């Protein structure tokens, strides 16, 4: 932020960075090889719906686009709202087809971005599961262009920090992992996790 912005008291909404999302497929392979975590085929995009008709129209368009693109195969889209007023679009895909899932997530992103609502994007995540029941999500931060792991433990809002650090170490060559731990914010109860 420049001096002038400070003096005048203004901020520009931060633009979303979409392309780094495509680091996910190779990261999924590394996770499977290194830590035995398998993709579940679930991914979701989280955004803050702006009020007014313009945003509602964009959202419907994006949903229709996803529904029609997956007419033949299984994937479908599910919309939900969390208690903080954020909207989650859950995309179901074939578990083995991570690139296809990422393409669908990217379609949501670019749909919102093209309509000028890029700043409303919060995060995206795709989830992984271990044979022993542990769960893990890779969360993508649009405004930073980085990923971080989120591993909830049980149901009472505890995180498996050891596993998260382990994942960070495993993926460091595959994607940009968020270096500041304070930005690894929890997404309890995120759809698809």
């Amino acid at each position, binding site marked *: *932020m420049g001096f002038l*912005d*400070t*003096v*005048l*008291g*203004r*901020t*520009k*909404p*931060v*633009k979303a960075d979409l392309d780094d999302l495509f680091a996910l497929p190779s990261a999924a392979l590394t996770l499977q090889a290194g830590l035995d975590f398998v993709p579940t085929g679930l991914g979701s995009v989280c955004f*803050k*719906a*702006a*009020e*007014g*008709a*313009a*945003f509602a*129209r*964009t959202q419907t368009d994006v949903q229709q686009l996803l529904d029609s693109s997956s007419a033949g195969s299984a994937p479908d889209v599910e919309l939900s709202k969390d*208690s*903080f*007023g*954020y909207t989650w679009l859950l995309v179901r895909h074939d578990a083995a087809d991570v690139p296809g899932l990422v393409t669908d997530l990217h379609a949501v992103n670019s749909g919102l971005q093209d*309509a*000028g*609502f*890029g*700043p*409303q994007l*919060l*995060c995206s995540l795709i989830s992984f599961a271990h044979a022993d029941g542990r769960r893990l999500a890779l969360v993508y*931060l649009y*405004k*930073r262009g980085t990923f971080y792991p989120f591993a909830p433990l049980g149901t009472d*809002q505890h995180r498996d920090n050891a596993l998260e650090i382990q994942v960070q170490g495993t993926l460091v060559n595959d994607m940009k992992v968020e270096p*500041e731990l*304070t*930005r690894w*914010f*929890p997404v*309890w109860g995120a759809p698809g996790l």
Partner: protein
Amino acid sequence: MARTRFAADRGLSARMVFVMFLLGLVYVVFVGVLIAIHLSPILIVVIAGGFFLFQFFGSDRIALYAMHGHIVTPEEAPELHAIIDRLCAMSNTPKPKVAIADSDVPNAFATGRSQKRAVVCATTGIMRRLDNEELEGVLAHEMSHVAHHDVVVMTIASFLGVLAGLITRFAFYATMFGGGNQRGRNNNQDSAALVELVVLLASAIVYAISFFLIRALSRYRELSADRSGALLTGRPSSLASALQKVTGAMGQIPTRDLRSAESFNAFFFTPALAPGFSLSSLFSTHPSLDKRLQQLAEISRELGQGR
């Protein structure tokens, strides 16, 4: 596209520049008067500078201490932390410290000289009264203050006022005790007293003018924070309803609590004024509710049109 939708309010910026220009001008004229009458202001500047540094470096602790706020961990206040986490991720800002003040006055404030040392504090009263979306609007407003470096800007602006005020006092005492300085020995006593009187008058006027200018600046920065906060969450109406709720609830609070909080108005979300106490708009640190609601309605309209 995004660029036009989120364009800055040029009128607001222009007015702010104008006020800051006048503020600077007042200061320059003031220093000019000092130089013209050969008064050595070193001591005063040292004292005022001390205050300034204290306010600048201690602002977070002072405000927290005065409001009895305490820093809370994510475990203690998961909801509040979650809202702020999300706002930080949306705006790509470092996470501020989160504090809660045990007070039933519904208010929130942000303080700290930089984004790294910022503290965002909400009272238990505001958390009880507002729902999550409204609280988010309020916190986005406060975090905009942090992003705009409002603490720094306002501290520097009030420093000029404090400086002028101190000199007024100094000149006043100097006049009272006969102005015993070196120049008094060379010139005759009458002209020395006259000089002191001029200083007194000049700094009193300077202080009065800067007082109004600082308040005007504060009002513009509130509008700015409203605007950025509303654009960040994309929900100007939530902030508007929070404002209405909070100001409506303001009148039902016992006066005693409010009076003890009044001196910190500049940092507040809505000013804590005793009920029935009406000030002219010139004196207030915050724009009127109507003006803020009007601006939010305008942003809401722009978002709805999606131009």
